[in-house]
Protein backbone atom coordinates (compact mmCIF):
# COMPACT_ATOMS: atom_id res chain seq x y z
CA UNK A 1 0.00 0.00 0.00
CA UNK A 2 2.04 2.88 -1.21
CA UNK A 3 1.45 5.71 -3.59
CA UNK A 4 1.18 9.43 -3.57
CA UNK A 5 -1.52 11.58 -2.10
CA UNK A 6 -2.66 12.86 -5.53
CA UNK A 7 -3.65 9.34 -6.64
CA UNK A 8 -5.56 8.96 -3.38
CA UNK A 9 -7.46 12.15 -4.11
CA UNK A 10 -8.19 11.04 -7.67
CA UNK A 11 -9.65 7.72 -6.60
CA UNK A 12 -11.71 9.19 -3.76
CA UNK A 13 -13.00 11.90 -6.08
CA UNK A 14 -13.92 9.39 -8.77
CA UNK A 15 -15.77 7.31 -6.21
CA UNK A 16 -17.65 10.35 -4.96
CA UNK A 17 -18.55 11.31 -8.53
CA UNK A 18 -19.94 7.82 -9.12
CA UNK A 19 -22.61 8.53 -6.47
CA UNK A 20 -24.21 10.73 -9.10
CA UNK A 21 -24.87 7.67 -11.24
CA UNK A 22 -26.97 6.27 -8.42
CA UNK A 23 -28.90 9.51 -8.21
CA UNK A 24 -29.59 9.33 -11.94
CA UNK A 25 -30.79 5.75 -11.47
CA UNK A 26 -33.31 6.98 -8.88
CA UNK A 27 -34.46 9.62 -11.37
CA UNK A 28 -34.88 7.19 -14.26
CA UNK A 29 -36.71 4.74 -12.02
CA UNK A 30 -39.01 7.53 -10.87
CA UNK A 31 -39.86 8.48 -14.46
CA UNK A 32 -40.45 4.90 -15.59
CA UNK A 33 -42.41 3.95 -12.47
CA UNK A 34 -44.72 6.93 -12.71
CA UNK A 35 -45.24 6.23 -16.40
CA UNK A 36 -46.17 2.65 -15.61
CA UNK A 37 -48.62 3.60 -12.87
CA UNK A 38 -50.23 6.13 -15.20
CA UNK A 39 -50.26 3.67 -18.09
CA UNK A 40 -51.99 1.01 -15.99
CA UNK A 41 -54.70 3.47 -14.99
CA UNK A 42 -55.34 4.47 -18.61
CA UNK A 43 -53.77 1.94 -20.98
CA UNK A 44 -55.37 3.49 -24.07
CA UNK A 45 -53.45 6.74 -23.59
CA UNK A 46 -50.12 5.05 -22.83
CA UNK A 47 -48.98 4.32 -26.39
CA UNK A 48 -49.13 7.98 -27.39
CA UNK A 49 -46.89 9.00 -24.48
CA UNK A 50 -43.91 6.70 -25.00
CA UNK A 51 -42.02 9.49 -26.77
CA UNK A 52 -42.46 11.69 -23.69
CA UNK A 53 -41.29 8.78 -21.54
CA UNK A 54 -38.06 8.44 -23.49
CA UNK A 55 -37.42 12.19 -23.46
CA UNK A 56 -37.92 12.22 -19.69
CA UNK A 57 -35.60 9.27 -19.21
CA UNK A 58 -32.99 10.89 -21.48
CA UNK A 59 -33.01 14.13 -19.47
CA UNK A 60 -32.75 12.29 -16.16
CA UNK A 61 -30.01 10.04 -17.45
CA UNK A 62 -27.91 12.82 -18.97
CA UNK A 63 -27.04 14.18 -15.52
CA UNK A 64 -25.90 10.74 -14.39
CA UNK A 65 -23.73 10.53 -17.48
CA UNK A 66 -22.20 13.89 -16.52
CA UNK A 67 -21.14 12.53 -13.15
CA UNK A 68 -19.79 9.38 -14.79
CA UNK A 69 -17.80 11.63 -17.11
CA UNK A 70 -16.34 13.47 -14.12
CA UNK A 71 -15.31 10.13 -12.64
CA UNK A 72 -13.66 9.09 -15.90
CA UNK A 73 -11.85 12.40 -16.22
CA UNK A 74 -10.51 12.04 -12.68
CA UNK A 75 -9.36 8.49 -13.31
CA UNK A 76 -7.78 8.87 -16.73
CA UNK A 77 -7.34 12.50 -17.72
CA UNK A 78 -6.16 14.35 -14.59
Amino acid sequence: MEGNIADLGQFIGAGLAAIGSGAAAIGVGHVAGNFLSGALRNPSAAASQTATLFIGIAFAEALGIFSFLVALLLMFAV
Partner: protein
Amino acid sequence: MADPKQDASLTFYPMDQFIVHPLFGDGSITLSSWYIPTNVTLWLLLTVVAIIFLMVVTTSKRALIPTRGQSIAELTYGFVYKMIEDVAGREGIRYFPYIMTLFLFILVANFLGLIPMSFTTTSHIAVTAVLGFGVFFVVTILGFVKNGMAFLGLFWVAAAPLPLRPILAIIELISYFVRPVSHSIRLAGNMMAGHAVLKVFAGFAQVTAIAPIAILGVMAVYGLEVLVSAIQAYVFTILTCVYLKDALHPHH
Protein backbone atom coordinates in the same frame (compact mmCIF):
# COMPACT_ATOMS: atom_id res chain seq x y z
CA MET B 1 -3.60 7.01 -18.37
CA ALA B 2 -2.50 5.36 -15.14
CA ASP B 3 0.59 3.22 -15.18
CA PRO B 4 -0.23 -0.52 -15.16
CA LYS B 5 1.20 -2.41 -12.20
CA GLN B 6 3.34 -5.28 -13.37
CA ASP B 7 2.69 -7.51 -10.38
CA ALA B 8 -1.07 -7.00 -10.21
CA SER B 9 -3.12 -10.14 -10.81
CA LEU B 10 -6.04 -8.29 -12.42
CA THR B 11 -5.29 -5.79 -15.15
CA PHE B 12 -8.01 -3.70 -16.68
CA TYR B 13 -7.61 -1.52 -19.73
CA PRO B 14 -11.23 -0.56 -20.28
CA MET B 15 -10.38 2.69 -22.05
CA ASP B 16 -7.79 1.32 -24.46
CA GLN B 17 -10.49 0.45 -26.98
CA PHE B 18 -11.13 4.17 -27.53
CA ILE B 19 -7.57 5.06 -28.56
CA VAL B 20 -7.35 6.60 -32.02
CA HIS B 21 -4.38 5.38 -34.08
CA PRO B 22 -3.43 5.70 -37.73
CA LEU B 23 -4.13 2.71 -39.94
CA PHE B 24 -0.81 2.88 -41.80
CA GLY B 25 2.74 3.59 -40.69
CA ASP B 26 4.34 2.96 -37.33
CA GLY B 27 1.46 4.40 -35.29
CA SER B 28 2.91 7.84 -34.71
CA ILE B 29 0.92 10.81 -35.90
CA THR B 30 2.88 13.12 -38.17
CA LEU B 31 1.42 16.45 -39.08
CA SER B 32 3.01 16.52 -42.52
CA SER B 33 -0.10 15.38 -44.37
CA TRP B 34 -3.46 17.12 -44.12
CA TYR B 35 -5.39 13.88 -43.81
CA ILE B 36 -4.47 10.74 -41.88
CA PRO B 37 -6.64 7.61 -42.20
CA THR B 38 -7.29 6.31 -38.68
CA ASN B 39 -9.49 3.63 -37.21
CA VAL B 40 -12.13 6.32 -36.62
CA THR B 41 -12.30 7.31 -40.26
CA LEU B 42 -12.34 3.64 -41.28
CA TRP B 43 -15.40 2.91 -39.15
CA LEU B 44 -17.12 6.14 -40.15
CA LEU B 45 -16.64 5.05 -43.76
CA LEU B 46 -18.00 1.57 -43.00
CA THR B 47 -21.04 3.19 -41.36
CA VAL B 48 -21.77 5.17 -44.52
CA VAL B 49 -21.23 2.08 -46.69
CA ALA B 50 -23.63 0.06 -44.51
CA ILE B 51 -26.29 2.79 -44.72
CA ILE B 52 -25.91 2.99 -48.51
CA PHE B 53 -26.22 -0.77 -48.69
CA LEU B 54 -29.38 -0.72 -46.56
CA MET B 55 -31.14 2.21 -48.21
CA VAL B 56 -29.97 1.94 -51.84
CA VAL B 57 -28.94 -1.60 -52.66
CA THR B 58 -31.64 -3.54 -50.81
CA THR B 59 -34.45 -1.26 -52.01
CA SER B 60 -33.24 -1.00 -55.61
CA LYS B 61 -35.53 -3.77 -56.86
CA ARG B 62 -38.63 -2.15 -55.30
CA ALA B 63 -40.34 -5.50 -54.93
CA LEU B 64 -44.05 -5.48 -54.14
CA ILE B 65 -43.42 -8.24 -51.64
CA PRO B 66 -40.35 -6.83 -49.88
CA THR B 67 -37.29 -8.82 -49.05
CA ARG B 68 -35.87 -8.67 -45.55
CA GLY B 69 -33.54 -5.79 -46.34
CA GLN B 70 -36.28 -3.81 -48.05
CA SER B 71 -38.59 -4.41 -45.07
CA ILE B 72 -35.98 -3.03 -42.68
CA ALA B 73 -35.44 0.03 -44.87
CA GLU B 74 -39.18 0.68 -45.24
CA LEU B 75 -39.88 0.18 -41.53
CA THR B 76 -37.06 2.56 -40.58
CA TYR B 77 -38.36 5.16 -43.02
CA GLY B 78 -41.90 4.88 -41.68
CA PHE B 79 -40.71 4.95 -38.07
CA VAL B 80 -38.76 8.20 -38.48
CA TYR B 81 -41.52 9.76 -40.60
CA LYS B 82 -44.15 9.09 -37.92
CA MET B 83 -41.82 10.30 -35.16
CA ILE B 84 -41.32 13.68 -36.86
CA GLU B 85 -45.04 13.98 -37.59
CA ASP B 86 -45.95 13.22 -33.96
CA VAL B 87 -43.37 15.45 -32.29
CA ALA B 88 -42.61 18.34 -34.67
CA GLY B 89 -45.95 18.45 -36.51
CA ARG B 90 -46.75 18.58 -40.22
CA GLU B 91 -44.30 21.44 -40.91
CA GLY B 92 -41.45 19.32 -39.54
CA ILE B 93 -41.80 16.85 -42.43
CA ARG B 94 -39.82 19.24 -44.64
CA TYR B 95 -36.73 18.48 -42.56
CA PHE B 96 -37.22 14.72 -42.82
CA PRO B 97 -33.98 14.07 -44.81
CA TYR B 98 -31.81 15.67 -42.13
CA ILE B 99 -33.41 13.80 -39.25
CA MET B 100 -33.46 10.50 -41.15
CA THR B 101 -29.74 10.94 -41.86
CA LEU B 102 -29.00 11.60 -38.19
CA PHE B 103 -31.05 8.60 -37.03
CA LEU B 104 -29.56 6.15 -39.50
CA PHE B 105 -26.02 7.37 -38.96
CA ILE B 106 -26.17 7.08 -35.17
CA LEU B 107 -28.05 3.78 -35.21
CA VAL B 108 -25.69 2.10 -37.67
CA ALA B 109 -22.58 3.55 -36.02
CA ASN B 110 -23.77 2.27 -32.62
CA PHE B 111 -24.54 -1.18 -33.98
CA LEU B 112 -21.24 -1.44 -35.87
CA GLY B 113 -19.46 -0.50 -32.65
CA LEU B 114 -20.96 -3.59 -31.01
CA ILE B 115 -19.06 -5.91 -33.33
CA PRO B 116 -16.15 -7.34 -31.32
CA MET B 117 -12.78 -5.72 -32.16
CA SER B 118 -14.49 -2.87 -33.97
CA PHE B 119 -14.29 0.81 -33.08
CA THR B 120 -17.25 2.74 -31.67
CA THR B 121 -17.12 6.08 -33.45
CA THR B 122 -20.05 7.50 -31.47
CA SER B 123 -18.16 6.94 -28.21
CA HIS B 124 -15.97 9.93 -29.07
CA ILE B 125 -17.24 13.35 -28.07
CA ALA B 126 -15.46 14.75 -31.15
CA VAL B 127 -17.90 12.82 -33.35
CA THR B 128 -21.08 13.41 -31.37
CA ALA B 129 -20.29 17.08 -30.73
CA VAL B 130 -20.28 17.69 -34.48
CA LEU B 131 -23.73 16.10 -34.67
CA GLY B 132 -25.01 17.87 -31.55
CA PHE B 133 -23.70 21.33 -32.41
CA GLY B 134 -24.85 20.82 -36.00
CA VAL B 135 -28.39 20.33 -34.73
CA PHE B 136 -28.02 23.35 -32.44
CA PHE B 137 -26.88 25.71 -35.22
CA VAL B 138 -29.41 24.39 -37.74
CA VAL B 139 -32.27 24.80 -35.28
CA THR B 140 -31.20 28.27 -34.11
CA ILE B 141 -30.72 29.60 -37.65
CA LEU B 142 -34.00 28.01 -38.71
CA GLY B 143 -35.80 29.61 -35.78
CA PHE B 144 -34.58 33.10 -36.71
CA VAL B 145 -35.26 32.58 -40.43
CA LYS B 146 -38.80 31.29 -39.85
CA ASN B 147 -39.88 33.64 -37.04
CA GLY B 148 -37.50 36.58 -37.17
CA MET B 149 -37.04 38.26 -33.81
CA ALA B 150 -40.21 36.54 -32.57
CA PHE B 151 -37.98 33.50 -32.03
CA LEU B 152 -36.74 35.22 -28.88
CA GLY B 153 -40.25 34.63 -27.50
CA LEU B 154 -38.92 31.18 -26.69
CA PHE B 155 -37.05 32.78 -23.77
CA TRP B 156 -39.84 35.16 -22.73
CA VAL B 157 -42.46 32.94 -21.14
CA ALA B 158 -45.70 34.86 -21.70
CA ALA B 159 -47.71 32.47 -19.55
CA ALA B 160 -45.75 33.32 -16.38
CA PRO B 161 -46.45 36.33 -14.12
CA LEU B 162 -44.54 39.46 -15.19
CA PRO B 163 -42.09 39.72 -12.24
CA LEU B 164 -41.09 36.11 -12.76
CA ARG B 165 -40.37 36.45 -16.48
CA PRO B 166 -36.81 37.89 -16.34
CA ILE B 167 -35.70 35.10 -14.00
CA LEU B 168 -37.32 32.50 -16.23
CA ALA B 169 -35.67 34.13 -19.26
CA ILE B 170 -32.23 33.59 -17.71
CA ILE B 171 -33.04 29.97 -16.88
CA GLU B 172 -34.43 29.34 -20.38
CA LEU B 173 -31.37 30.96 -21.92
CA ILE B 174 -28.98 28.77 -19.93
CA SER B 175 -30.95 25.62 -20.68
CA TYR B 176 -30.98 26.55 -24.37
CA PHE B 177 -27.21 26.85 -24.56
CA VAL B 178 -26.61 23.68 -22.52
CA ARG B 179 -28.67 21.74 -25.09
CA PRO B 180 -25.90 20.92 -27.59
CA VAL B 181 -23.54 19.93 -24.75
CA SER B 182 -25.97 17.52 -23.12
CA HIS B 183 -27.19 16.36 -26.53
CA SER B 184 -23.72 15.22 -27.58
CA ILE B 185 -22.38 14.07 -24.21
CA ARG B 186 -25.46 11.92 -23.62
CA LEU B 187 -24.76 9.84 -26.72
CA ALA B 188 -20.98 9.67 -26.30
CA GLY B 189 -21.23 8.99 -22.56
CA ASN B 190 -23.74 6.19 -22.97
CA MET B 191 -21.69 4.49 -25.65
CA MET B 192 -18.39 4.93 -23.81
CA ALA B 193 -19.85 3.75 -20.48
CA GLY B 194 -21.41 0.67 -22.01
CA HIS B 195 -18.29 -0.42 -23.84
CA ALA B 196 -16.09 0.25 -20.80
CA VAL B 197 -18.41 -1.92 -18.68
CA LEU B 198 -18.16 -4.69 -21.29
CA LYS B 199 -14.37 -4.54 -21.08
CA VAL B 200 -14.40 -4.56 -17.28
CA PHE B 201 -16.55 -7.69 -17.25
CA ALA B 202 -14.25 -9.26 -19.83
CA GLY B 203 -11.35 -8.44 -17.49
CA PHE B 204 -13.02 -10.40 -14.66
CA ALA B 205 -12.83 -13.47 -16.89
CA GLN B 206 -9.08 -13.60 -16.19
CA VAL B 207 -9.82 -15.13 -12.80
CA THR B 208 -10.75 -18.79 -13.25
CA ALA B 209 -13.06 -18.96 -10.25
CA ILE B 210 -15.43 -16.24 -11.47
CA ALA B 211 -14.91 -16.66 -15.23
CA PRO B 212 -18.27 -18.38 -15.94
CA ILE B 213 -20.15 -15.64 -14.10
CA ALA B 214 -18.09 -13.00 -15.88
CA ILE B 215 -18.86 -14.46 -19.31
CA LEU B 216 -22.58 -14.60 -18.47
CA GLY B 217 -22.24 -11.00 -17.32
CA VAL B 218 -20.64 -10.01 -20.63
CA MET B 219 -23.54 -11.63 -22.47
CA ALA B 220 -26.11 -9.82 -20.34
CA VAL B 221 -24.38 -6.46 -20.70
CA TYR B 222 -24.04 -7.03 -24.45
CA GLY B 223 -27.80 -7.56 -24.71
CA LEU B 224 -28.33 -4.37 -22.73
CA GLU B 225 -25.92 -2.54 -25.02
CA VAL B 226 -27.90 -3.56 -28.12
CA LEU B 227 -30.96 -2.03 -26.44
CA VAL B 228 -29.05 1.10 -25.40
CA SER B 229 -27.65 1.58 -28.92
CA ALA B 230 -31.14 1.66 -30.41
CA ILE B 231 -32.60 3.79 -27.60
CA GLN B 232 -29.82 6.38 -27.77
CA ALA B 233 -30.25 6.75 -31.54
CA TYR B 234 -33.99 7.16 -30.91
CA VAL B 235 -33.45 9.65 -28.08
CA PHE B 236 -31.00 11.74 -30.12
CA THR B 237 -33.45 11.91 -33.01
CA ILE B 238 -36.52 12.64 -30.92
CA LEU B 239 -34.71 15.44 -29.07
CA THR B 240 -33.77 16.87 -32.48
CA CYS B 241 -37.49 16.79 -33.31
CA VAL B 242 -38.31 18.56 -30.04
CA TYR B 243 -35.75 21.30 -30.76
CA LEU B 244 -37.12 21.58 -34.29
CA LYS B 245 -40.62 22.06 -32.89
CA ASP B 246 -39.29 24.84 -30.65
CA ALA B 247 -37.77 26.52 -33.70
CA LEU B 248 -40.97 26.26 -35.75
CA HIS B 249 -43.32 27.23 -32.91
CA PRO B 250 -41.30 29.29 -30.41
CA HIS B 251 -44.29 30.28 -28.24
CA HIS B 252 -45.00 28.05 -25.31
